[in-house]
């Protein structure tokens, strides 16, 4: 990858850090700055780790619920059954929230908050596991519930704060852009783009030139100079090719376009469609998850009331 090519775009990079164009190609770079979008940080690896954690959480929660249903757990069930159910659902719930948080862009201290929240929740679950059921008495129960709830609420609060920040920034690409869309260009492609751009600009600039007439003063022409234009031959030719060529170039008023242009437009269209699909897909998934979680929280609150 040519570094000089990037330095040429430094001004644009400064002004618009997320959209960098090279020729007709758009390079998506992850850069940091201090505006509302820049405060939010993200990383490709973190995103995928977050997704995995989220999936693991879902699996654990589902396993816990399934376990409860299979074992028909109630207040009089065996302690190990109750313990296992709470460990599965407790860990699952924490992991789900931690995963969601990691999949989102984070504020400067976002990852510390996630780590602290997970630690607090897991610590609460550990205390619960070690003390249930033999030493499971108040006020220890209150401490454990408070610890777990604190961790849980921290994760929910952090996610909520990030969603609000993201909404304020109003840029859908903030969540959608990930490392997989970073394209690299080899020297040959960059050189070709530069060469083409240079050639076009030179030809355009040269077409504006006006030449002064050549000095022909003092030139005397021979007698034959005005009499003949040169050796002439005459061939019978109806030149049907002119019509065929016109038809080939502009059939039904079609716009003339070279293969380079066709390639470019196809590539741009393909990229736009792919990028749109990726962004839409991720945005929709994220939106569904957040909406679902908010709805379930609201429902739970209403039920408790």
């Amino acid at each position: 990858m040519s570094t000089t090519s990037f330095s040429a775009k430094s001004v644009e990079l400064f002004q618009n850090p997320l959209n960098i164009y090279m020729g007709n190609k758009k390079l998506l770079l992850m850069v940091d700055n201090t505006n509302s979008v820049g405060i939010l940080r993200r990383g490709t690896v973190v995103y995928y780790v977050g997704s995995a954690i989220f999936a693991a959480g879902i699996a654990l929660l589902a396993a816990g619920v399934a376990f409860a249903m299979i074992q028909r757990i109630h207040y009089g069930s065996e302690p190990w059954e109750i313990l296992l159910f709470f460990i599965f659902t407790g860990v699952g719930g924490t992991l789900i929230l931690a995963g969601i948080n990691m999949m989102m862009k984070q504020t400067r201290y976002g990852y510390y908050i996630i780590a602290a929240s997970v630690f607090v929740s897991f610590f609460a679950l550990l205390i619960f596991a070690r003390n249930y059921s033999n030493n499971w008495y108040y006020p220890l129960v209150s401490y454990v519930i408070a610890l777990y709830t604190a961790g849980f609420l921290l994760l929910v609060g952090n996610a909520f704060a990030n969603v609000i920040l993201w909404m304020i920034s109003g840029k859908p690409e903030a969540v959608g852009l990930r490392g997989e869309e970073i394209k690299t260009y080899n020297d040959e492609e960059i050189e070709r783009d530069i060469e083409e751009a240079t050639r076009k600009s030179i030809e355009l600039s040269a077409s504006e030139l006006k030449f002064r007439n050549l000095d022909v003063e003092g030139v005397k022409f021979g007698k034959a100079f005005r009499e003949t234009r040169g050796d002439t031959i005459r061939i019978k030719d109806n030149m049907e090719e002119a019509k065929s060529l016109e038809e080939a170039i502009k059939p039904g008023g079609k716009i003339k376009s070279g293969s380079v242009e066709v390639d470019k437009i196809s590539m741009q269209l393909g990229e736009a469609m792919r990028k749109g699909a990726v962004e839409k897909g991720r945005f929709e998934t994220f939106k569904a998850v957040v909406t679902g979680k908010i709805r379930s929280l609201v429902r739970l609150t209403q039920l408790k009331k």
Partner: protein
Amino acid sequence: MAKGLDIGTMNIICSERENEDVVFTRQRNAFLELESSDLTKTMLDSAKVLYIEKDGVINVLGEDAFKFATIFGKESRRPMKHGIISPKEKDAIPMIKLIVERVLGEPGHRNEVLCISSPADPIDMDMNTLYHKKMTEALARRMAYETHVIDEGLAVIYSELSDYNFTGLGISIGAGLTNVTLAYLATPVMSFSIGRGGDWIDEQVSITTGLPKEHVCAIKERGFKLNFEVEFGSPDGALSIYYDALVTYIIKNLNRKLAEITPPKVEFPVALAGGSSQPNGFLKTFERKLRDAKLQIDISNVKQAKDPLYSVARGCLIAARTQEGGDVEEGKTEVSKK
């Protein structure tokens, strides 16, 4: 009316339509300096030789410059070299201007469409054709022509490959350069030139046989036949050897360039044109070597232009007429809209 103009290293050829005919006007792109005297001028005038006189020097232009060079054993001066305006010839542009003005003539009306052929950038030489292109365009524009420039190889395709929907490989083997264009449905996919042509053959034969270049050129143009049974030490033998070397070189470079692109999966016909493709046996040799080379594209057939020397000028005229037709159509549309 529209005109086509082929500004070649050896010839400048204008093509235009007159009733049912196409008229080609040709002039050698060369000049020869002679000392001026009243006697010389009288002789030149009586022989109807094309010349100009400036600062006590006579410059014989065109075909006669070649003839005088052979007679006086001098070397004619050439305003162009390797397909472009010669950087080593100080009088190149004024001489080209004079010859172009004579060959082209006045436009039938202001902004008459004129299509000029131009070489593509060579792949085996450090040379750029932009300056030449802009200069020739400017010369014609000053004569009140509406000028358009097309690649020489594309002009061959326009002239010779209409039966194939202007799809194929157009090769113009001129004096200074060999121009190649691959087109698909009249759209150029690839255009380049190779820095060898008829002049290279003349030079090599001149070096090896000791004959003047003009003399070698005259032998070549006087019905030379490309075959491989020749006398020892004869110019024909040397010409055959260097023609064979030129064909091999062209095909080698063509194959190299084709490897860089992904052409459409169709069979491409090949059209050969240009003054240096005229000798008998050239087509046969070229086709044989082309088939042996196993190119990156499929070749359907190889054909030679009906008039190899005039093919580029004819292609330019076709392009000019098409351009003119397009303008007329656009004009009609504008009028009808109003």
